[in-house]
């Protein structure tokens, strides 16, 4: 008998094991849901799968009477726009400041401790200031995402730049490169894949801030809808929205990884 740590499951067993927890979760849910519905058929806390399907149909495939739009897709569009914009701006800020900080000791001395402190402030606690400074429309939501994620990306980029082998920077200088040339020809291309990795890591936080911002003031968006229907406990709507958000988060993570693999083959050599 082999040690447990040496047992590699066969592909078929592996597939089965992968599905198992999902099946158990679904099964547990349906039992709990049926039990609750048997007690009170109008209970909304754990809706049946048909009720959920109904809600999906209503939100995603039926025109809203008042606006003529499909609520679900409208919410998705609004949220994706916000998170896309927010994370893009964060990435650009992170890239720029992180690169400069990592490369230039003088700048780093000034900015690095300040950014460390800033990154520790929980953005949720200073929401009122954000509203008043940035207003209540799209800008505020995007700003919350930026404030929540940019310091993390800056710090990550800075440490990534500092982890590049000193040898390369010296080599570039012996080839006659100026600071500017080192920045754009040696460092920038090398930290691009790391930027993507960093963005992937902060995506979770970005979704959190997006939902929080939409919960506080919005007219559409996935987070808005969840917190609005919470007013009448429509779990049949909340569940598909949560699953949808999870799917979107997964898709974004996945595509960022793929982009990185395609664009920066030299970065992923170790993963072979």
């Amino acid at each position: 008998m082999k040690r447990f740590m040496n047992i590699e499951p066969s592909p078929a067993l592996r597939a089965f094991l992968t599905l198992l927890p999902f099946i158990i979760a679904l099964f547990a849910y349906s039992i709990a849901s049926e039990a609750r519905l048997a007690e009170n058929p109008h209970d909304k806390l754990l809706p049946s799968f048909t009720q959920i399907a109904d809600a999906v149909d209503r939100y995603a495939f039926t025109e809203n009477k008042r606006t003529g739009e499909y609520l679900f897709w409208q919410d998705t569009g609004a949220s994706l726009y916000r998170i896309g914009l927010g994370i893009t701006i964060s990435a650009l800020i992170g890239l720029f400041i992180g690169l400069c900080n990592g490369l230039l000791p003088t700048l780093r001395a000034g900015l690095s401790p300040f950014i460390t402190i800033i990154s520790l402030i929980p953005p949720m606690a200073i929401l009122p200031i954000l509203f008043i400074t940035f207003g209540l429309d799209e800008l505020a939501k995007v700003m919350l995402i930026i404030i929540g994620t940019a310091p993390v990306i800056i710090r990550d980029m800075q440490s990534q730049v500092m982890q590049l082998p000193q040898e390369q920077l010296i080599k570039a200088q012996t080839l006659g490169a100026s600071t500017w040339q080192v920045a754009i020809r040696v460092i920038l291309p090398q930290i691009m894949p790391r930027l993507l990795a960093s963005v992937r890591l902060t995506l979770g936080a970005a979704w959190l801030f997006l939902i929080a911002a939409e919960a506080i003031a919005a007219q559409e968006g996935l987070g808005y809808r969840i917190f609005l229907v919470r007013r009448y406990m429509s779990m049949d709507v909340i569940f598909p929205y949560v699953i949808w958000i999870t799917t979107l988060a997964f898709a974004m993570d996945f595509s960022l990884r793929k982009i990185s693999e395609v664009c920066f083959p030299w970065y992923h050599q170790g993963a072979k």
Partner: protein
Amino acid sequence: MSFLEIKNVWKSYGDAQILERLNLTVKQGEFVSMVGASGCGKSTFLNMLLGKEKQTKGEILLEGKPLVQEPDEERGIVFQRYSVFPHLTVLQNVMIADEFSNAKLLGFVFGKKKAEIKAKATEFIDAVGLTPALNKYPHELSGGMQQRLAIAQALMKKPKILLLDEPFGALDPGIRADMHVLIRDIWQKNNLTIFMVTHDIKEGFELGSRVWVFDKLRHDPQAPNAYGAQVTYDLDISSETNKSDSKMKIDELSTPSSNPIMQEEKA
């Protein structure tokens, strides 16, 4: 006026004295091998030649003028590792050397200029035997090929001095032999002045026209950092006669008991 003059150079980091009383002159075209125990300050010395570190005392003159205090085109370097840019292909790695000087603002060159640089780079790549790998990325190359690439890069700038810090330290013995052929060839063809740190005493003698042995002459067991290393042997092995004279030296240095390289083993 000698090509490179090192006048009473001392180097310390904080309390730790690393190097002391270095007085050396080097003529153009010499190949200086530097050996010594690990941590005795060979890389530190190379870094001073490179301009990355500043001597605490004394001065270093290149063609009569003090060394520029940061790395520049006059001095090429090849490290044991990480000397090439992983995000560029072989061709791009070599071309970038001339792109730096031709595109101060953009960092990239285009059109005719680019074709010129490409032609020049291809020549150097050919000289180190990397033509078949022109469009490969460094991670697709073996360790030896990466070091060839690093050398080609450095040569593009026609440096007055070429510094090598254990350039073959990470290579397999068989590949080392090939690299020795290459570097000797390049040294002679380009009339370069080369400084090479190595841990392999045989390699040092085989390649160098001169060998420096770094060691501490003074030692205070109470304060191991109080004294720095000096060049305890300065052997000229440029002529065949000198070479055979030095054979004995090699053997003497290679016996484990007196071998300075072995000192760090005596924990």
